[in-house]
């Protein structure tokens, strides 16, 4: 390890594919691996979404069997959550955190390598369950027993894959925390760190706290299935609802694991293109911490209909509503950052603005879902589907797109094609709304989620949604093309890249050399990112 990470020649990369990528301990290469892997998973999960939308194009079952449809919804969710969104953010963390805090590499480079290379194996196993006897798990990504225990031979493989994903995430999180706590350049105090680093630090603590809880729940499912325990089996005195409590104790923080780093990326991009420091840096940090804290005490709002005592319902409703306060603070701060700035609208900024608007819409529907009596109607309908896709697609995924365009010149040394980038944004933003906005109406009109076929009264909006879905899916091929072209060549990027960009990552040349900050950089206000005026 030491011989590689402490390499003195700055651009001396290991030779050969195996040495360069498979045994890599370099944070930039591992970051690239994560990002490429996430992109691949995004398309695999996306292909499943296309099958779902194709089946739902018209009433009647035209293409698949209902059990296969259920496998698609389940595996689509698992792949997108654990394979696309989370690894993509870890990729960003790997690439950017050391560059942003002036560290030569991640704290634990060898563990970094393991945590990535677990993923391809885990996902090969997960996707291979589709070809097993009885098919892939079809009980939803929430894995509720007793239904999930009816899964065929693939059950143990899927559970094992989830265990591996959990271990990978935990190792990634440990690495992020160790890097941020121990590897900062002298003078990079905690309250001078860019907001992306802050949101990732908090996200990493969330991961450490809840991924093991998921592992516990999955282990209990395994023993219930194979070793005759009765944690969740009513026949043996267990309680299926207990699983839901444990799952959502993991699941709600998990939602924030997927959105907090997105907040971080957006908080980097808006000040750059507004040419103005981030408004309310400190309140942004506090808002992130309070969102993370609240995420641990609101889990049962995912399960208002399981039959809870009145007092519990009122408590979880009020606690959930409180989340909108720090989230609101963030949105207001972003707008205040733009206010009286000097804005330009390159692709990263467009995606960031799209994020602010559409994520806020997802936030509104989230607030509506918190209201228990109304949730009795909304729960498990397409209204919920619309809600979490607004938060995850136009939220997390848009932030990932924004971040990719933002840092792509730093990664590749070339500018991407701005005209195509803008097309990608406008097509995405139109079609994603055609795809998900009608789903609000479907849910309100009474269409349950996770059904492979529906009454003809829902036909028009489903067809509209499917058309939006196919178009949104096709549009994403543009993204691959743009990134590919940019990696291969293009206008040479400067170190600064963006006129308003501030922060350590812009002090190194583009493309960032293989080794950076072997000698810790000098930190003063001129290189500290937006708004940190200590």
């Amino acid at each position, binding site marked *: 390890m030491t011989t590689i990470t402490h390499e003195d020649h700055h651009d001396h990369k290991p030779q050969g594919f195996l040495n360069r990528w498979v045994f890599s301990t370099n944070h930039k290469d591992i970051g690239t691996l994560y990002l490429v892997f996430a992109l691949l998973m995004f398309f695999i999960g996306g292909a499943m979404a296309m099958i779902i939308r194709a089946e739902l194009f018209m009433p009647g079952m035209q293409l698949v069997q209902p059990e296969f449809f259920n496998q698609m919804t389940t595996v689509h969710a698992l792949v997108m959550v654990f394979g696309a969104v989370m690894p993509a953010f870890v990729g960003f963390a790997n690439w950017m955190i050391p560059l942003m805090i002036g560290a030569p590499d991640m704290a634990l480079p060898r563990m970094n390598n393991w945590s990535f290379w677990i993923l391809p194996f885990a996902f090969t196993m997960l996707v291979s369950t589709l070809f097993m006897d009885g098919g892939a798990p079809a009980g939803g990504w929430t894995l509720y027993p007793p239904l999930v225990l009816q899964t065929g031979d693939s059950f143990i493989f899927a559970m094992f894959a989830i265990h591996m994903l959990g271990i990978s995430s935990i190792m990634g999180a440990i690495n992020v925390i160790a890097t941020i706590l121990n590897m900062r350049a002298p003078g990079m105090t905690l309250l001078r760190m860019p907001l992306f680093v802050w949101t990732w630090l908090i996200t990493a603590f969330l991961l450490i706290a809840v991924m093991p809880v998921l592992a516990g729940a999955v282990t209990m499912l395994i023993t219930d299935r194979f070793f005759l325990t009765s944690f969740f089996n009513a026949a043996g005195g267990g309680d299926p609802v207990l699983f839901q409590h444990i799952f959502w104790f993991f699941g709600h923080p998990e939602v924030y694991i997927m959105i907090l780093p997105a907040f971080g990326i957006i908080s980097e991009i808006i000040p750059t293109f507004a040419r*103005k420091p981030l408004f309310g840096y400190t309140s942004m940090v506090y808002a992130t911490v309070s969102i993370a804290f609240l995420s641990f005490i609101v889990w049962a709002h995912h399960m208002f209909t399981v039959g809870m005592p009145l007092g519990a319902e009122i408590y979880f409703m009020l606690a959930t509503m409180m989340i909108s306060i720090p989230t609101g603070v963030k949105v207001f701060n972003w707008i205040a950052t733009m206010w009286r700035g000097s804005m330009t609208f390159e692709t990263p900024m467009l995606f960031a603005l799209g994020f602010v608007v559409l994520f806020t819409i997802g936030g509104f529907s989230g607030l509506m879902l918190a209201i228990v009596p109304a949730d009795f109607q909304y729960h498990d309908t397409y209204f919920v589907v619309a809600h979490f896709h607004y938060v995850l697609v136009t939220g997390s995924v848009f932030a990932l797109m924004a971040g990719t365009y933002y840092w792509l010149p730093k990664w590749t040394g070339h500018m991407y094609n701005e005209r195509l980038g803008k097309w990608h944004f406008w097509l995405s933003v139109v079609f994603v709304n055609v795809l998900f906005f009608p789903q609000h109406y479907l849910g309100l009109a009474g269409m349950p989620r996770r059904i492979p076929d529906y009454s*003809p009264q829902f036909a028009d909006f489903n067809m509209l949604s499917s058309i939006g879905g196919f178009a949104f899916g096709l549009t994403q091929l543009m993204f691959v093309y743009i990134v590919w072209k940019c990696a291969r060549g293009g206008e040479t990027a400067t170190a600064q890249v963006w006129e308003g960009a501030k922060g350590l990552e812009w002090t190194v040349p583009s493309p960032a050399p293989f080794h950076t900050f072997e000698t810790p950089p000098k930190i003063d206000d001129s290189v500290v990112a937006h708004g940190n005026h200590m």
Partner: protein
Amino acid sequence: MKKENTLLVGLAMTAAITVVTYAILVAPGFLTDSGMNMTEGVTNSSKAVYDLHMIILWICIVIGILVFAAMFTSIFLHRKSRGAVAAKFTHSTKAEIIWTTIPILILVVMAVPSTITLIELEDNSNPDIIIKITGYQWKWKYDYIDEDISFYSSLKADSNAARLTGANIDPTTVDNYLLDVDNRIVIPIGKKIGFLITADDVIHSWWVPALGWKQDAVPGFINQAWTRVNEVGVYRGQCAELCGRGHGFMPIVLEAKSEEDYAAWLVEQKSALTVTQAETQRIWSKTELMAKGEAVYEQQCAGCHQTDGQGLAPAFPAMAGNPVTNGSISKHIDIVMNGSEGTAMQAFSKTLTDAEIAAALTYTRNAFGNQTGDLIQPATIAKHNNG
């Protein structure tokens, strides 16, 4: 940038966003009639839930318009291409206090009616009639606890035939496609109906939107819910919790009748029960079985296996010359009663009476050119059922 200028643009943006919101949300009638909005339903509590939904929705719309108007005002005015020069401010304690306090106040305003409605919804005391609902993969069972009436309710045969992959039946030609059942749950209007909700195998969720709530059915646990329907009518709903491959195919149809009609329905159900028992016990002639069998076949089986018994390849095997209809009786009974795993063949033991199954079996073994000559009595089915 001058102050008036900002104000003017702000107002213009507010107006523009309001127009867009109106175009997307209000004008197509989504929010004004019940077409594509939450239903107002037919109970006082469903109306309360609807009102709550609308209050929150409007609050969100107003906040949204203001926030986005501010954002787009800034996007319009404070752009480099218009020569805007970036200000330097990084925080404003006053602004931050304002935009933390106002949302708190709004939340309090929202929390009060929500809590009141919730307390009403959860008041399960003193029902007039109690109905126990049990979810099965993939049908519902209704027990009228004080009336000794109990029946299963599953997807109607015509929907069930049309919903099969590759069935080539246009769903729009099927009445209430996927939202129709063989046996409806019937309740009287104006009475408080208490529901005890549980499940047999996996978690289901009982949901009729017109009643304003859904409630999970959890195996081993009993949940409570209640309703008091104000209007006579037929209200449709679906299972709302993923419960396996038939999740989309276990609808709920609730019929609210006047008190007199409900009383008549009870009498009818009870006499039907007596008839069913008598049917099972007596010995049937072949003519009787064939006549009844043809009727049952037409209603339950012909959707897939076709009226002429030729089936529809590849999913639905022909009855004519079929090894099952011409082979061992007990295997035939077993398939009809319990369904066939991995195929579209569903289990009929709980949805059809013994006499109906016996008749349908006898019919299929002696029609379409099948000539087994077998005569299957309802009592045989009853015995199979309990063995």
